[in-house]
């Protein structure tokens, strides 16, 4: 099997990645925008179309594979990362994308998610986080805010939410990023980075569910509010944000602080400088704790470090075994261990 990009790919266009199936999301659903950016980025990667596999679980988000004209497997709730692990393990030559929702990935599928991350299985995981169960018509999810009233929590949720980025970092993820459905530029750039990352690439995408959780991400999607409520992460650049780009994040005693540039003698030099390649995940974890409304929400790549991938390690082990023991011969295997002969006429 050859590497993902080894075959010379024909020039592909967005249209090559549009399948013949009717898209069945609600009008106005954020999933449309994500689909569009996925279909835009794929042809840029120089990978033959037939070498992509899209794997998903169950949920509105998980319908995406039907609409992308690649190989696709719409599996069962929460299990996509495990199934994708099998695919990538068996076929390192394929580029594997996992499409999942906040319920699919973090509720029923939480275990498979953390284990594929820690194993650094080479797949791109797009978590469409709408902070709600869309397909089952509106129950709260592990990312729904505390106190949220939904069909299953008429008196408000009493579960503290998970922070998907913190969890992924706690699970040793090598690539972690966050973006928004409505910000096409951030979205396509993050998707591109994820696609190019060799290893598990975990991408949280804020996604608007117009039907059951409309405007859940208003503070970072609303044109008026967003620049004060988000930080665009750029490697090597200080954490600056705000309409006038005059606010920044400083850290003292492990605690983040919002400061204003030019006030009290604060300069860029006082600010935290973004380092997505930091070997220690502590910095990225720190970033993940910047949550609204107290802090601006970081968007972009939190962490991106290199580590040998699970499929590479597996292949190397096989090659090494074959070199050491020789390529296996069935006859030798059958006759391994202690053997003996019975002659034709033994008593």
């Amino acid at each position, binding site marked *: 099997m050859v590497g993902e990009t080894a075959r010379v790919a024909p020039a592909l266009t967005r249209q090559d990645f549009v399948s013949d199936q009717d898209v069945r999301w609600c009008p106005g659903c954020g999933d449309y925008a994500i689909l569009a950016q996925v279909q835009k980025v794929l042809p840029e990667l120089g990978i033959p179309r037939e070498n992509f596999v899209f794997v998903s679980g169950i949920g509105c988000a998980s319908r995406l594979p039907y609409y992308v004209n690649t190989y*696709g497997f719409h599996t069962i709730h929460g299990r996509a990362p495990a199934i994708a692990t099998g*695919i990538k*393990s068996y076929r390192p030559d394929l580029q594997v994308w996992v499409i999942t929702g906040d319920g699919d990935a973090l509720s029923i599928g939480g275990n498979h998610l953390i284990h594929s991350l820690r194993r650094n299985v080479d797949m791109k995981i797009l978590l469409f986080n709408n902070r709600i169960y869309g397909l089952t018509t509106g129950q709260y999810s592990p990312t729904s805010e505390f106190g949220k009233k939904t069909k299953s929590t008429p008196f408000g949720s009493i579960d503290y939410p998970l922070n998907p980025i913190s969890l992924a970092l706690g699970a040793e993820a090598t690539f972690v990023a966050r973006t928004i459905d409505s910000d096409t530029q951030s979205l396509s750039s993050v998707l591109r980075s994820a696609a190019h990352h060799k290893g598990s690439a975990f991408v949280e995408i804020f996604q608007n569910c117009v039907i059951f959780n409309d405007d859940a991400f208003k503070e970072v999607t609303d044109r008026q509010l967003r620049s004060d409520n988000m930080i665009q992460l750029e490697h090597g650049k200080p954490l600056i944000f705000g309409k006038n780009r005059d606010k920044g994040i400083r850290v003292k005693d492990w605690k983040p602080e919002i400061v204003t540039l030019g006030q009290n003698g604060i300069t860029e030099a006082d600010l935290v400088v973004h380092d997505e390649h930091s070997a220690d995940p502590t910095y990225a974890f720190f970033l993940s704790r910047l949550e609204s409304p107290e802090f601006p929400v970081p968007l972009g790549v939190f962490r991106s470090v290199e580590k040998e991938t699970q499929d590479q390690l597996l292949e190397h082990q096989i090659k090494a075994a074959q070199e050491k023991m020789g390529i296996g011969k069935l006859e030798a295997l059958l006759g391994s*261990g202690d053997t003996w002969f019975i002659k034709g006429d033994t008593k």
Partner: protein
Amino acid sequence: MKKQVEEKQDVVIRFAGDSGDGMQLTGMQFTTTTATMGNDLSTFPDYPAEIRAPAGSLAGVSGFQINFSTRDIRTPGDAPNVLVAMNPAALKANIKDLEEGGMLIVNIDAFTDGNLKKASYAANPLNDGSLNRYEVYHLPITTLNTNSVQGTSLSKKEIDRCKNFYALGLMFWLYERPLEITTQWIHKKFKGEIAAANEMALKAGYHYGETAELFKKHYRVPSAKLAPGKYRNITGNEATAIGFVAASQLCGKPLLYASYPITPASDILHELSRHKNFGVKTLQMEDEIAAAGAALGASFSGGLGLTGTSGPGLALKAETIGLAIMAELPMVIIDVQRGGPSTGLPTKTEQADLLQAMYGRNSESPLAIVAPSTPSDCFAMAIEACRIALEYMTPVIYLSDGYLANGSEPWLLPTIDSLPKIKISHPTDAATFKPYLRDEKTLARPWAIPGTPGLEHRIGGLEKENITGNVSYDPKNHELMIHLRAEKIARIAQSIPDAKVFGKEEGELLVLGWGGTYGAITSAVEEMQKRGHSVSSLHLRYLNPFPRNLLKVLNSFEKILIPELNLGQLAFLLRGLYSIPVKSLTKVQGQPFKVKEIINGIEEILKTRKVETWSEKRLASPQH
């Protein structure tokens, strides 16, 4: 003084001791040497659920039984002729099985007050006359062993650990077996002083038998008349693993085995993970669900995807198996059955997952089921499971059990040519490809694999439109697909051999079995035939679908008896399918059938008049 030699046809020995006493190892060494001597043999290891329960406790007793013979044998033997008991707990737990007048060798050094108490003995059984019915040999094995291991700097504890080799040496002498194989093994496995000490102990045990007054004679069990060829001794789990490697070679596809450890299936994972040079990929996943998922992922991407577990793990894999059924992908799920329900008796054997295998998924989800009948048959059925999965694009459940998994027997190595061919084709023509356009004969759908240009398509767990494989909620299409999936499984019967009757093809009684009960059933039926009864047997290795001739065979007998290590699951299946009256003989003790128990069952039913209906307790019969 050359001692007397007596010839025997077959001997059943049970080694029993503490979990820490190395009884499994001792038994295995005796087995290997016996196998290479050309005896037919059958073994049955029986160990506790704890890794090493408190030394000397009843819970910690570990046993290994071997039946070896100059004749063709099929079971590890009902009652041992010889019991080696390394401590009071081992004696207590095993003495009830020893045949009347059988030989009992006890390590009297271990019969301390403390150990007697741990074994709940009120009085020392060595002195209270309770063992009078046996030929008892009081041996201070610990002391003898210590005396034999000389000139070493090993600690007392380390020296004591050699005592199983001392006992083994003695047994080698007693049954005229050479020491070479075990001495070689000792030096491969151990280093330096430990190796030397073990060898000394082994030899000392042997010489003790030869020289001490105690033993008046020893025994010869001449080699058996086995078919000529090359043999090895093999356990069911080994044969299963090797069978899968063979299937992978036969179909030309590397195999991916994804599993989560669970007794008694873990050894398949262990064995397969050693064969990386065959391109075998093994994944120890985070749980059984993930393991099934990874196997299915491998299948989706064009591989031979396998996953293995035991009963509780099969329950967890159910939803994923359902997806494999809907996606119609090839996949083999190994279930090495153990005692249940729930965690149950995790190291004991049982056959109680048949109905789970048939019905343990939501909705109408038919799949194929096969079951090996002996340790070495595991090899053949592993290949069959893969063949069916690949030819019919379906998940296949392979039902082994703890008895087969750990038991062993000599295996006549097949030639590579004699193995079945497995043909696979992957479509490549975009113009004609439809994901659910079926093969006319098998009804298998085409297996288009990622990487094939122009065949990009999407499948999943939602109902499929016939031919196109698109999502469809159409009522009539759903019904059609439900029937097509069932029909596809039914058609597998076309490709499986007719079931062969052991004995006459018609008569008064057919004893019908499946799985690991083969040896006990066949031996019992053979005995009854010898006694002149009209009894035959049939052993099913294909459980869904059944062989095509099954109903015909069933109808050729007046009565049908079905011995099973459950409450009558195959019996239930047959009645459900054919509405025919069959009688169950059940045993649910975590232990295999004894030949005697089946003989008793046969005698019973031969006395009974044919009945139209037998209702079984397992079904919660409401008649009371």
